[in-house]
């Protein structure tokens, strides 16, 4: 409450995640693990703006795709990955800031906000698909229409374009990035800015009556979410080594929302876990041709909403809390934590 993050819980999550990340390559290829982590990062970006800011953005894929395209275009023009990597975060951050300012200062209601973010994504999708001609180029980078942009410089050690970071090294870099982003977001949510953002989700009118400018704070939170999604897009561009308009697709937007719902809103870990689980399921289903994998994902969503309406992680947290309360002599009684208010996990 006083602006200090729950350091114990944050450290516990970081340690468990690190251990799992070190053990996981024994079970799954780092190539697959890397994309699951990127999906997790992307889900965390929506988990931040939706779960903590109460802003349901149907177009998180727009910032994801923008990050990927910004990186690819800059990498072709510059031939070195350091500045493109930064641009892959800064461009979506600025775009989300401008879009958010237009929506929040325009006092749009939640429904219109959802519609506008969805439409923006679809505009990107449509536009990028229609850029096949040579006239659609930024510097030396042709946008490539439906085929996208291949063949750009992938991540290298800063200052040394020949020292590529790929394979297992890239995996461990992504692990480190996830750790840093998680810790930074936990710090942000525990700061006065983060607490006011959560308060806005709870009751925007009251927060305004306290003297806080809710529009400014929502815009800032939206921009931070855009930056994290852009970072995920930048990492994706380095993982896939090609960016295509599919990054802006309706399916991609919907998938991010489903990850958050299944994993559980109101936490950062929930959307991350949801993305990892469903991402892996999609990957596993992709190995067979018997069942259409979108049907299975749809079924998982329906079952999740019916059986675990709060999502996987909050439900597990609830069960753990119940188990602790059944052992009152051993475990000291804990302070009751608000169901929706805290910056848990």
């Amino acid at each position, binding site marked *: 409450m006083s602006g200090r993050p729950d350091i114990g819980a944050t450290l516990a999550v970081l340690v468990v995640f690190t251990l799992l990340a070190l053990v996981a390559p024994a079970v799954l290829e780092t190539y697959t693990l890397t994309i699951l982590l990127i999906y997790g990062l992307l889900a965390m970006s929506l988990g931040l703006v939706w779960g903590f800011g109460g802003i349901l953005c149907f177009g998180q894929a727009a910032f994801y795709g923008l990050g990927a395209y910004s990186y690819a275009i800059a990498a072709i023009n510059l031939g070195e990955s350091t500045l493109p990597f930064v641009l892959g975060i800064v461009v979506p951050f600025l775009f989300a800031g401008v879009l958010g300012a237009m929506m929040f200062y325009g006092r749009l209601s939640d429904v219109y906000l959802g519609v506008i973010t969805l439409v923006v994504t679809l505009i990107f999708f449509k536009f990028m698909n229609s850029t096949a001609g040579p006239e659609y180029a930024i510097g030396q980078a042709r946008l490539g229409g439906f085929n996208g942009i291949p063949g750009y410089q992938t991540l290298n050690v800063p200052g040394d374009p020949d020292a590529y970071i790929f394979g297992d090294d890239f995996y461990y870099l992504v692990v480190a990035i996830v750790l840093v982003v998680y810790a930074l977001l936990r710090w942000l949510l525990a700061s*006065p800015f983060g607490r006011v953002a959560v308060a806005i989700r*709870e009751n925007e009118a009251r927060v305004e009556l306290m003297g806080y*400018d809710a529009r400014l704070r929502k815009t800032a939170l939206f921009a931070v979410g855009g930056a994290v999604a852009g970072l995920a897009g930048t990492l994706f561009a380095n993982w896939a080594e090609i960016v295509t308009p599919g990054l802006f697709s309706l399916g991609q937007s919907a998938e991010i929302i489903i990850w958050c719902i299944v994993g559980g809103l109101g936490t950062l870990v929930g959307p991350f876990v949801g993305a990892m689980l469903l991402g892996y399921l999609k990957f596993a289903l992709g190995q067979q041709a018997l069942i259409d994998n979108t049907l299975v994902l749809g079924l998982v969503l329906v079952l999740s909403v019916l059986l675990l309406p709060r999502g996987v992680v909050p439900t597990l947290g609830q069960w753990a809390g119940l188990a602790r309360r059944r052992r009152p002599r051993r475990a000291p009684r804990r*302070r*009751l934590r608000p169901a929706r208010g805290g910056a848990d996990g």
Partner: protein
Amino acid sequence: MADIVLETRGVTMRFGGVNAVDGVDFSLRRDELRCLIGPNGAGKSTFFKCLAGMLTPSAGEILIDGQETTGWHPHEIARLGIGIKTQVPSVMDGLSVRENIWLAALRVLGRQGADGAVADALERLDLGDLAARPVGRLAHGERQRVELGIVIAARPWLVLLDEPAAGMTADEIERLAAVIAEIGRQAAIIIVEHDMQFIRAIARTVTVFAQGRILMEDHVDAVMADPRVRDIYLGKKG
């Protein structure tokens, strides 16, 4: 005129063809506690919302501490140092009592001062035992107290309260009257209220609204004795 902290000139609020507030001229002194009363639909809550920035008047102007605030957003009005409590308790249900009040104190007093202001508000409103409880799990009267805590924790010099006693028990109302008297030593207060006993306990000057206009403004005893006031409350032609 120097000690007038709030003034309205011809404030009018139209909804379609209806004038909910109709050319109201009103003023409040720095040390004053003023109750606004009137039957349902008299326009007092609409007038209150205009003062708080929750509605922009169709005509007229509002001056707070000499500054024209007509059309300002609620957060801009609150930043002048004004505490606002709405008719329906407006609190953050998912947050604890402590955090609700802390967020209000934080903006004004910063991290250093906020904890002290929270402890003070919890004690004054007898909310200490409920401090860790999510506000969504509290009874109506308790939520009213939490909202009052939000108001007083920000140390305002002008307080606007819309029906603060609604839904409270007799004990709670008694404690509320004492808290309001205490706030009144440091701040000017406007209270919209229905509970006549409560008004008698706290008010000196009362402004009576009827059909969007000010019907009369006088000492509480004179207002209670006025046949026009009795008539409008009983539904006769005012």
